[in-house]
């Protein structure tokens, strides 16, 4: 649930919708370049991020527990992000949950996405 008490899938995060629309998912990219790895290289970092959040956020004011995170991931993966494969759906669902809860502002996320891409493409 977000701060307004709505289920997370009722919130639209345009920035994430655009990422979904561009569809640079691992199966597509791996197929394009003939790569055999079954999962994208950032997956273990995402695993680490989920564990780190589960550890630190359960008891604090945020109240974003392991169960909340997984329940919202299930709900979002079955609705808004149903077309994404795993682990892209896990990553986007986590971002969605944090934006929907107001932990991360969407404009702030968009600026950071631009900054990171500029850095990686430098």
């Amino acid at each position, binding site marked *: 649930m977000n701060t307004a008490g709505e289920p997370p899938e009722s919130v639209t995060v345009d920035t994430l919708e655009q990422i979904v629309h561009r569809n640079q998912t691992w199966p597509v990219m791996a197929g394009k370049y003939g790569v055999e790895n079954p999962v994208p290289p950032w997956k273990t970092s995402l695993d680490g991020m989920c564990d780190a959040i589960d550890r630190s956020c359960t008891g604090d004011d945020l109240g974003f527990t392991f169960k909340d995170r997984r329940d919202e991931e299930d709900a979002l993966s079955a609705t808004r992000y149903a077309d994404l494969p795993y682990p892209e759906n896990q990553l986007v669902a986590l971002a969605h949950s944090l934006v929907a809860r107001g932990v991360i502002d969407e404009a702030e996320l968009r600026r950071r*996405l631009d900054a990171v891409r500029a850095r990686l493409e430098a």
Partner: protein
Amino acid sequence: MRKGFPVTEHDHDHDHDRTVKPMVDEITDFEVLEIALRELCIEKGLFTAAEHRLFTEFAEQIGPTPAARLVARAWLDPDFKRLALTDALTASKEVGVDWLEPTGFGTPSDFVAFKILENTPTVHNVIVCALCSCYPRPILGNSPEWYRTPNYRRRIVRWPRQVLSEFGLALPDNVEVRVQDSNQKHRFMVMPLRPRGTDGWTEDQLTEIITRDCLIGVALPTPGVTTNIITKTRPAVRPIAN
């Protein structure tokens, strides 16, 4: 490259037949999102970079091999089998897995209550986490995608034989199927029966046929089979929105 020599088109000492494997040669939105999200979480104090590194390194080194070795050793050594079935944490340590890693308290979602379920000629165990995706990660690695899906989680509890048959596992009617539901406090793993045709095999040979799927309980160890079943993940027939 040899030092002191200019590089011409083929003046370098590598074998063109053994060059690196192909890579995705562009920056994807998801790669960017993972980094951006991580940076913002660190800046907002949700976790530190050191915590993230600790858990990421943990995620990179876990896999199903220790669990397979544990079962192979149990098949060969009755004393070790007794230990595995009565004190799975100590038995885990003997195959190199300490459930208290990486924090001294395990990972946030992997508590240290771990039990190994022994299959018998009349009882077959299979594990699930109906609530989310609890899984014995320290000893079995990350769960496969299908294990995380509501489809598997919901249906294996209700119709275990039907779901097992989708993995190619048809059990006789006289074999009872027990579905063990993991939870945030308890993790489980299956100890399958040693198959026929493996007399005289070494621990290494046996370890090779004890696949991840056998340890979840959706497959049986079979001589000659060393890979997991590839299943296509399907969306739920009745998704959450309904």
